[in-house]
């Protein structure tokens, strides 16, 4: 009975298990990463789309941000109270004022910037008449405020009011200015743009201040390549990777063999070797700075032993080698144990029978390491190699602590400089993308070369 029914019902269980994984990958991994990398190749608001008339929704051409344009004509649109309530920047508001002139009551228009409404007044178009005052002027030659016959500062001036004059605001309008523009020397590419997208100069010309449409660009990546610090940072990062990894692997294998040697108390070494794993990268950097600085631990102990007469400057701007050696030592101290942990677990997976067999056939310690242990460790070494290379490409805090980030720089530090000091998120993203790319390429190379050897060896 059961058996005959089973093929009919589809087994959904594995798919329900996969779904959360996919959601996790999409929302916590792919999406943020895509957003971050997009910064490197996508320029927001790079283009301004021009309309074919003020009230139309059709676009004529797109002009790049920063383009210098000529103004052909302009148009002023009065916004309805509803439009005003939802309007953003770039709206010019004018108020119709009632005040007592020399010859009795007068009415005139003044721009919003000159009139101070009582607090909590909704500054929109149709407002109930309120009492307001004329704002004072700062740093201007004319302390008086001009009021006009219509809401336009080119219209006739009715009167000039002193600061703090009391007026009654009876009406308000919101105006939006639109300009028909074309790039200088190319009159056929014309269209309308609103004032808040433009920087308007007083000779019938303007500059496109911001756009409303993004576009693909390589200029951030180009900027990264042209950055003065790019080449030294790339070279230092690669140099450090090359210097650190071989030494770490030799040390880690020796450390792992000591732990696995089954000598009495050898298990204790695991705990001692693992201590640096618990120390943060920055703390290690500061620790090594304290060792190598002018009056640091190294100089003072050498001095007290009478080996040197006066402190040696290890870390100075004109001694890049000294700084790189200090970074190298700090990184080896800090991260060798990570490799060791992986190698130890790999060693534990090698069965005793194999080692015993090798010993019975007369293999010495070196021969056992070279021909039995290392080949069997290959998978764990591969994992450790990939992990360590990725971490070496990310080296940052130790470098900042030891060199201040200026004298000796690495890629991660340049990403940080662009992000934090120069506030150029796009170039920072380009640097981050480059680190990702190098990491991926190196991982692929490791996977390919080590696998090929393995197959040939078998």
């Amino acid at each position, binding site marked *: 009975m059961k058996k005959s029914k089973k093929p009919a019902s589809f087994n959904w269980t594995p798919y329900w298990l996969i779904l959360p994984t996919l959601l996790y990958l999409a929302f916590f991994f792919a999406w943020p990463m895509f957003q971050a990398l997009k910064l490197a190749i996508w320029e927001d608001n790079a283009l301004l789309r021009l309309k074919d008339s003020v009230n139309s929704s059709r676009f004529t051409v797109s002009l790049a941000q920063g383009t*210098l344009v000529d103004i052909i004509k302009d148009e002023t649109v009065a916004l309805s109270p509803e439009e005003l309530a939802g309007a953003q920047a770039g709206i010019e508001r004018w108020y119709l004022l009632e005040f007592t002139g020399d010859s009795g009551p007068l009415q005139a228009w003044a721009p919003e910037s000159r009139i101070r409404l009582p607090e909590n007044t909704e500054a929109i178009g149709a407002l109930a008449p309120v009492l307001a005052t004329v*704002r004072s002027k700062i740093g201007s030659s004319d302390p008086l405020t001009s009021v006009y016959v219509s809401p336009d500062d080119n219209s006739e001036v009715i009167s000039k009011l002193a600061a703090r004059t009391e007026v009654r605001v009876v009406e308000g309008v919101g105006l939006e200015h639109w300009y028909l523009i074309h790039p200088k020397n190319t009159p056929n590419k014309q269209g309308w743009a609103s004032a808040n997208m433009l920087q308007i*100069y007083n000779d019938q010309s303007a500059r496109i*201040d911001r756009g409303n449409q993004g576009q693909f660009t390589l200029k951030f990546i180009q900027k990264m390549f042209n950055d003065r610090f790019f080449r030294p940072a790339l070279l230092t990062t690669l140099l450090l990777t090359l210097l650190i990894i071989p030494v770490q692997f030799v040390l880690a294998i020796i450390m792992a063999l000591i732990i696995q040697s089954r000598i009495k108390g050898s298990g204790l070494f695991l705990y001692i070797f693992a201590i640096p794993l618990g120390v943060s990268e920055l703390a290690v950097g500061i620790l090594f700075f304290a060792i190598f600085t002018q009056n640091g631990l190294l100089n003072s102990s050498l001095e007290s032993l009478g080996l040197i007469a006066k402190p040696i400057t290890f870390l100075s701007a004109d001694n890049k080698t000294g700084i790189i050696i200090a970074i190298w030592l700090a990184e080896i101290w800090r991260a060798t144990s990570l490799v060791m942990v992986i190698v130890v677990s790999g060693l534990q997976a090698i069965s005793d029978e194999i080692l015993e067999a090798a010993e019975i056939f007369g293999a010495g310690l070196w021969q056992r390491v070279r021909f039995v242990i290392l080949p069997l460790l290959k998978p764990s070494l591969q994992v450790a190699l990939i992990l360590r290379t990725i971490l070496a490409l990310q080296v940052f805090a130790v470098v900042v602590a030891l060199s201040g980030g200026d*004298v000796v720089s690495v890629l991660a530090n340049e990403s940080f400089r662009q992000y934090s000091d120069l506030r150029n998120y796009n170039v920072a993203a380009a640097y981050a993308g480059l680190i990702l790319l190098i990491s991926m390429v190196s991982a692929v190379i490791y996977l390919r070369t080590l696998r090929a050897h393995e197959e040939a060896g078998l």
Partner: protein
Amino acid sequence: MIDVVDDLSQSRDIAPAFLATGLLGSEDFLYYVPWMQATYIMAANKAALAYLPEGVDLNALSWQELADWCEVMLERTDSPKCGLPHGGLFHRFLEGYLFPSFTGGMVSEFKSESAADMFAWVKSELWPSIHPQSISYEFMQEPLLAGEVWVAFDHTARLLNAFNAEPDNFIAFPAPAGPAGRGFMPVIVGLGIPSTAADPQAAKSLIDYLTQPETQGKVLNALGFFPVVGGVDTSDLPVGIAIEAGAVNAQANAADAIPSLLPVGLGSRGGEINQIFRNAFDRIVLEDQDIRMVLDEEGANLQTLLNETGAPCWAPDSASQGPCQVN
């Protein structure tokens, strides 16, 4: 912000010149209320005065005289005695002092002949007698107090500890002048309220508090930033500030003074212009690259930055229609 100032002005006296800077060139839109001001000056250990070439007036020093002075000290004491904060606010030294003094401009003259001459001079005459540790100096007060350098340039707030700790040992004097004048950079710190602020009323009260003469006195006492309102009680000042005040006034009121503003109009990309000035110096003076090539390349970077941000020229460059141009 005009309304805030209007209300504040009832009870205090904000210096109109500082207030006007808050307009940022606009007619009647005030972007900030000035809070405090500072500048960069020179400091010297009195021991250095013995080496000052004959007939040189500290208050009317020229860059050449400073370089000569540094060289004399280097030769006679066998160690460099002049220092610059290359690890600190060195870009202001280039933007507001060297460039205006030698070229009369900051941006517009960036790659001019006079800028090239200036760098050649810095490289051959000034930098060789500057302390090599200058690369990492952030605050000049520390090397001054340690006796490592005797003559230094820095921000008033970054020299203050030296003047306070050993007022009898240190003197302050205005920055030197070059062929075009005495470039100096007044710094104004302002307070603004974003239009989207959650509680503008509370922001107003904070501005009210920070601009009271008593608070301004405390700021001066503790930070070495000078007040922008009148009526600050100066009877109980730390000695160091009194020393600095003399130099600040002499510098601002010098007949050949060229006030140079901090870069404005670059928005969030203000850091990039500093990097461009620093790059030019580092490449020419520290890395020994060709002056003309560096100025052309970095000048192109500067022009791109100005074009992208649309920033018009600021003092000491004359006002521009459209993005400021590197001539």
